């Protein structure tokens, strides 16, 4: 069990407990009343910390709006996801975190009645647009879902699935990718002797790591994790969190999580979303210890949400 790499005081304390290095944050939140404004239907600007300006962006989101039918789920979302870092999105249920994540690889296309405006770019290439080949686009990303979803086939075939659908037949290459991905997902030692077994025979934590191996098999430019630990026990959760630290640097990770401690432990940057809007986005340690917006502080201290 590795210690959380981003030292944060008291993040393991239950929500609602006294918070911060002292009785009061050293520099109190300066912006107030945003949530009330949102509730009134007014447009609010996200507060983006200045540190982000220096990062090179893998993924940039600009003024992104999304509607499910008539209901708007995302409002003017603008974000840049820095290269080689772990970025977490937190917020209460229904705030649009997962919707935003699923918009990145256009999985929302599968749902009838979804409409979007705004722009998203992956390394400068547009994600939305008439000329975009969605299938090619999805091959440039990897995604891991809430519940482990290995396919009903062998462990080996599960991992090399992205290559298989590309028509790859070279046995040597497939073997190599399989081993590299499973090592990358810290699963190789556990399954190397039973690669031909059905993927569904693994335990839940192993299944989720198998899904991570599958997600990184295609060498993605960005790895999307949608609450990857919510169906796992604490031990398995720990393994996945360690794994994220190992993947960092080589891969850009965008993780949606319910669990604020997890965001605090694992991420470099954190965005706080509420009611389909980004409220505050900045370096994790600053966001958790010294939020700029009062509402962020209220959320992370457990006063609502």
């Amino acid at each position, binding site marked *: 069990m590795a210690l959380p790499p981003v030292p944060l005081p008291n993040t393991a304390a239950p929500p609602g407990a006294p918070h911060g290095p002292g009785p009061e944050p050293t520099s109190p939140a300066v912006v107030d009343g945003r949530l009330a404004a949102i509730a009134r239907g007014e447009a609010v600007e996200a507060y983006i910390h200045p540190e982000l300006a220096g990062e090179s962006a893998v993924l940039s989101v600009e003024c992104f709006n999304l509607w499910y039918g008539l209901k708007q789920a995302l409002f003017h979302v603008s974000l840049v996801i820095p290269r080689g870092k772990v970025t977490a999105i937190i917020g209460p249920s229904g705030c649009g975190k997962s919707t935003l994540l699923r918009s990145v690889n256009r999985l929302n296309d599968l749902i009838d009645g979804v409409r979007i405006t705004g722009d998203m770019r992956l390394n400068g290439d547009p994600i939305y647009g008439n000329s975009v080949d969605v*299938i090619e686009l999805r091959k440039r990303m990897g995604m891991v879902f809430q519940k482990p*979803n290995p396919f009903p086939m062998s462990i080996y075939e599960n991992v090399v699935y992205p290559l298989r659908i590309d028509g790859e037949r070279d046995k040597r290459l497939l073997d190599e990718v399989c081993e590299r991905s499973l090592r990358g997902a810290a699963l190789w030692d556990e399954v190397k002797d039973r690669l031909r077994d*059905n993927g*569904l025979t693994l335990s839940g934590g192993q*299944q989720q790591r198998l899904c991570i191996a*599958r997600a990184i098999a*295609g060498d993605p430019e960005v790895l999307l994790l949608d609450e990857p630990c919510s169906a796992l026990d604490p031990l398995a959760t720990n393994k996945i969190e360690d794994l994220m630290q190992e993947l960092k640097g080589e891969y850009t990770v965008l993780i949606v999580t319910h669990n604020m401690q997890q965001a605090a432990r694992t991420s470099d940057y954190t965005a706080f979303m509420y009611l389909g809007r980004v409220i505050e986005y900045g370096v994790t340690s600053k966001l958790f210890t010294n939020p700029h917006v009062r509402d962020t502080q209220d959320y992370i201290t457990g006063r609502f949400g």
Partner: protein
Amino acid sequence: MVWLQGGALAVCLFMIVGLLYVVFRQGMATFWPGPSLQVRTHGGAVYLGEVVREERYRPDPALLDGLPESARGPARDALAREDGWARRRLIYTANFDLTQTHHHWVSDFEIADEERPEWALVIERATNDGRFNGVPVAFLIDGKEVATDPADVWAKFNEHHGPVRQRFQRRVKIEKDQGGAVSRREEEARLGLRRAELEHGAGSPEYAAAASKLDEVNDWAAKEHDRLNDEIAHLNGENARYAMRLAAGGQQKMLPLADVVRAYPANRVGYWGKLGIYTSRWWEFLTDEPRNINSEGGVFPAIWGTAAMTLLMSLVVVPFGVLAALYLREYAKAGPVISAVRIAINNLAGVPSIVFGVFGLGFFCYIIGGSLDDLFFRSRLPSPTYGTGGLLWASLTLALLTLPVVIVATEEALAAVPRSMREGSYACGASKWQTIRRIVLPRAMPGILTGMILAMARGAGEVAPLMLVGAVKLAPSLPVDSEFPFVHPQRSFMHLGFHIYDVGFQSQDSESAKPMVFTTTLLLIALIATLNATAMLLRNRLRRRYAAGQF
């Protein structure tokens, strides 16, 4: 409430078990040979045969007046003792050629005396007159009596019967195979002439060539037929030398040995002898063709026809049903049209099957088959090739009938594939078809096979539409044989379900056909159970492979 539910289940189970029990009991008992009983009535009539059934009834008192004086008193006493009830037994007297009946009811009060004659022979004949019961009187070779004692006659019979039967079977084979081949060449030459006439006209050189070819073949065929006829006549002549004379009910009958399929002295055979007869009858039933207007012999062509039709039907219905369900579930946009299509499919399952038969006859046989005949088999017209009922059209009709079952089952199976699995596949960059082919279909396969099992069970047991599109009472040859092109899907075929209907309700003598009905029903149930068990085995193997993970 729980008692009501449990009770309903118990009633269902009771009915199913009861049905199976009756069919199994009657079906298994049919071929067991029973002893022969000979009764003499007060009127002097003699009845010899196996007792197949007995029951109690209330005879009309006037019936007793027909008895002779001396018997009337005891009969009245016996009736009075039983409150007016009497027992009567149904004796399988056979000897249709002598008595014009197969069975006879004998009441106990009519009987003067009864015995079990030691040498009563039961003889199963190859002719349409059915069985013969009698006591052997003499064995004749070339018209001369060589044995007159029953034991000697029986010994002689056993000595000569084997070779005679072999000659008989060789004769049948010559008639069917070699004779058939010669006739086929003749037919081909005749069709060649007709084709030349249709394509080139009656005066063309091609027509002349075909005509001379036909003459040539006709000459050859006449010679061949003569040769075969000689051979057959020789075999027949050899067989005609052997005959057996039997006495039955005061009459005597000469039986040529070649007509005898099986004979046994019913009151002399022991347990093992009976077991031998039982086994040999089952073997004949499963592997041979029917005889005595379907009421005896085997049902092999019907077994073959049922299995072939069911498999062909599954082969057609599963791909079609799966494709249709895939479109409905995966590609079509939900809306009023799709809802209407779904309702229509569900209603299709409720259409009476005879309507499908009528449709099959009109569409497959007459329209499609008729067009095929027009295009490819003109020379054979007006006799139809594909333009009439046959194995292919029957399978297609039943495929149509069972299509809703497969579509509904497949749709359910597709809907049960978790969304997360599809999304996982899409997130890997798979296209829709790749996702369906690699993830959705394998995962839905057990459900699809369930649909196939249901369709097979429904299709194999269906009779009504088959009567219109190709099932026949007696098919001259199987749809697969050694004749080019070896597979003849246009041929009509026999079917166990239709056989049950035909034997049970269309035969001249339902009493002797009844045991056959039970046996055939038993066989049909066993066949469907076997087909289903195979499919289930397959499904369970797949299910193990795609079993959902546990954690």
